[in-house]
């Protein structure tokens, strides 16, 4: 517990345990009859145990309660939800200004907004709402509901996790606390620290947000942003009812949204979150089931076992090592593209990694196709030859040669550039199953570049150690990072991960890649009001980045999910969320 090594060992022990158990569980489950048998003998089906509340209307055809796997969310309120579990629940409880097409991820006006328009190429936006939307407590969803929500999240002293999402709105800075210069307790150097008590923010509302009337508000951005509309379906931009501001802590236990499902009782921590269909949902796609119960599991492997035994309807995230087992033992299995990518970043600030040929050689020496089909992943990942995920508009399968497998050219470049003298350190975060593939990558380097494996050391740290070190330019070799979209737009990948002004802590340009040519191309692309005009420009920017190889795209995530015959219409979108309104029960 004292050292990082100790903690890693603890995590490794548990991970090993899961691994061993998963291996040993491989063969006994090839009898597909087992789940049906056990349904009859073990627990009663959930439909009977969860009597719908009196408030719901008579169950429609295909009604009933569906149970779905989830991990314990951190929060259940838009200002603080920045992780997948909370997002999943909120996506059932809320509907934003827009929504995304589950298959194409394109923005659709199936949310609260009637129209979102900008007359000046993305500097000011006029948002008109549809009439008749209400929160679950009966209060109307108005322009004020959005403006208050966004101001709350942006206001520094509220310390909302999603605060950064509002930084592009004019006046965001006025809502941040002032800073004082203090010596750092560790290093003694003078650093600026936020001082919310001594220097509270100048304002509680962003100057860029103005309510015109109940169904109309305008947003002024600090800089033009043509893709601003695309962002607005994300969790952070959901509206909040007045009940939230009265008591955010109480709200968190029983969140009131405006979506197709509403809470049935309070959040039973670590046990379950029950929702029922919202009879007053104003959208075009109401829930088709009576209710949805999120069963909270501490370990997804347990949920998979419950799924196989017929005690659970849906598991929307099957761990890679259990995919084969679930495919064999569970009646239905689905796989869709996700927006997530894993990549190896280079510390461009380190002298050893400043030669682009060295970086290109390391990238071209990796056979991603073989890696994802090896026993490490068993085809549960898709090889990445691009940084932006396939679900994002403007995706190309390959960007340039540097991000493809070419062992001969890799060896030639390694030779001509002189490679890397001395030891190489490869960094990754511990306890998340990255060890195996990172090791496989090093073996490929050794095979294709003649790199001495004895010279390579692995440094694995917890996130709490790892991330601050990345932000402080502390990496000394290739390091593993991941990304998933906040909104389906190429800008969310290319600019956030590689733009010169987006180095930490402003953005996630953790390689500290700085190329004015790339920046200019991104600026040009961002200025295009039409996404179809912007896409070729993002692709040109991508080609520039690929030629420089500040990072190596490794593989894209896939959503793997299984469900029992009790439910139909199960589909997991690119955000990794089930499309809850499509769910129907069978029989």
């Amino acid at each position: 517990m004292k050292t990082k090594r100790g903690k890693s060992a603890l995590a490794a022990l548990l991970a090993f345990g899961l691994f061993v158990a998963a291996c040993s569980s491989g063969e006994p489950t090839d009898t597909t009859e087992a789940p049906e048998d056990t349904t009859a003998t073990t627990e009663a089906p959930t439909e009977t145990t969860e009597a719908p509340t009196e408030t719901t209307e008579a169950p429609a055809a295909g009604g009933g309660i569906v149970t779905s796997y989830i991990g314990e969310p951190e929060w259940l309120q838009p200002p603080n939800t920045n992780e997948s579990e909370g997002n999943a629940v909120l996506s059932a409880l809320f509907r934003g200004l827009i929504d995304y097409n589950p298959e194409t991820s394109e923005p659709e006006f199936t949310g609260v907004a009637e129209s979102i328009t900008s007359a000046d190429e993305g500097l000011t936006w006029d948002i008109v709402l549809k009439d008749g939307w209400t929160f679950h407590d009966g209060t109307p969803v108005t322009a004020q509901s959005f403006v208050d929500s966004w101001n709350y999240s942006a206001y520094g002293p509220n310390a909302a996790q999603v605060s950064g999402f509002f930084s592009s709105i004019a006046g965001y800075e006025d809502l941040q606390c002032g800073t004082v210069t203090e010596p750092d307790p560790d290093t003694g150097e003078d650093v600026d620290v936020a001082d919310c008590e001594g220097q509270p923010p100048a304002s509680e509302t962003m100057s860029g947000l103005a309510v015109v009337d109940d169904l109309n508000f305008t947003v002024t951005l600090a800089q033009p942003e043509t893709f601003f509309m695309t962002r607005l379906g994300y969790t952070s931009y959901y509206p909040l009812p007045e009940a939230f501001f009265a008591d955010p802590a109480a709200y968190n236990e029983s969140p009131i949204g405006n979506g197709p499902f509403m809470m049935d009782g309070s959040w039973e921590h670590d046990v379950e979150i029950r929702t029922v269909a919202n009879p007053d949902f104003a959208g075009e796609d109401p829930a088709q089931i009576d209710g949805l119960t999120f069963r909270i599991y501490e370990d997804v492997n347990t949920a998979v076992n419950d799924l196989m035994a017929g005690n659970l309807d849906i598991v929307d995230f099957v761990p890679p090592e259990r995919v084969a087992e679930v495919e064999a033992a569970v009646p239905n299995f689905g796989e869709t593209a996700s927006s997530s990518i894993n990549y190896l970043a280079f510390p461009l600030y380190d002298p050893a990694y400043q030669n682009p040929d060295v970086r290109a050689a390391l990238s071209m020496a990796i056979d991603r196709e073989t890696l994802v089909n090896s026993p490490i992943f068993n085809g549960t990942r898709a090889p990445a030859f691009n940084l932006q995920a396939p679900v994002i508009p403007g995706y190309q399968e390959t960007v340039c040669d540097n991000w493809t497998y070419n062992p001969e050219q890799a060896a030639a470049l390694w030779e001509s550039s002189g490679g890397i003298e001395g030891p190489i350190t490869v960094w990754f975060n511990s306890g998340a199953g990255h060890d195996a593939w990172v090791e496989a990558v090093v073996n490929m380097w050794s095979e294709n570049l003649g790199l001495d494996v004895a010279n390579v050391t692995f440094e694995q740290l917890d996130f709490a150690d790892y991330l601050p070190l990345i932000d402080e330019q502390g990496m000394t070799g290739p390091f593993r990072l991941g990304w998933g979209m906040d909104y389906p737009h190429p800008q969310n990948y290319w600019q956030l991960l590689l733009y010169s002004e987006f180095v930490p802590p402003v953005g996630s340009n953790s390689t500290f890649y700085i190329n004015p040519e790339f920046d200019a191309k991104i600026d040009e692309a961002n200025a295009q009001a039409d996404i179809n005009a912007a896409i070729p420009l993002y692709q040109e920017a991508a080609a520039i980045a690929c030629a420089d190889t500040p990072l190596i795209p490794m593989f894209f995530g896939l959503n793997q999910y299984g469900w029992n015959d009790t439910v139909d219409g199960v589909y997991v979108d690119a955000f990794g969320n089930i499309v809850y309104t499509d769910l129907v029960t069978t029989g």
Partner: protein
Amino acid sequence: MTSYIIRRLGQFVLVFFAATLMIYAMVFAIPGDPIRALAGDKPMPDSLRQTLTQQFHLDEPFLVQYWYYITGVIQGDLGTSFNNREVTEIISERFPRTLRLAIYAFIIEVIIGVSAGIWAGIRKDKFFDSLVKVSTVAVISVPIFVLGFMAQLIIGVRLGWLPVTAGNPPSLYGYLLPAIVLASVSLAYVARLTRSSLVENLRSDYVRTAKSKGLTQRRVIGVHTFRNSLIPVVTFLAIDLGALMGGAIVTETIFNIPGIGRAVYEAVLAQEGNVVVGIVTVLVIIYAVANLVVDVMYAVLDPRIRYD
């Protein structure tokens, strides 16, 4: 005896402060910035990071942080987790589940372990004795996560004899399989300990005397051997009750019982000092109480032991 117990209870206060200080120091010593980790791969604005850091006093020196913590504790406030949940609430929700699991496991352990041990001890070197010896070695040598997963997959998923998870609301039936798994290793120890202790006492002079007086086998074992054979077993059992609770992480995770084990594990990974210290301190107190109970039990089991 009463004054002895009061004196021991007085020591608990000291144990409490020492335990909280030590655990707090250990969590403090973990390197890294837990606040930055909250954002994961995503960027975290500096102002947000600093506001949260100050809110949890993570920018203060160790003793100042501990002072904030301990003054809170004295006022009945164990602090909050990073997602703003009261630690007292987390403990009061999770602790009863772990306690329930541990008590079921304990009952199984005592009943099966002690009776198997006695039976094997009496029938030394017979078939049942060998069976106990072999099966306990087997159970002890298999790691509990393997045992747990296998039991769940075979008995729960494939055969469907017992529920896969404890369920909601958790039933006695649902807790049965996890309790057996949790009890299994300790049960094996209890059986072996009881057996060897009994075998040893059966060889002692007073047993020979009792036998030569013509007492029945039942009386020799029931009155003269059984009680003092239990002294090492009781010591083990009492310490084990604490160990069952602290060591239930794996069982709780496999059978989805949201008890304190998993909470501590995750709080350590997230470096949530308040949560770790709160829960571990509760465990420390349980250990201390269990120890006191053992010491008192000695006097009950063996009249030669007195505390005056």
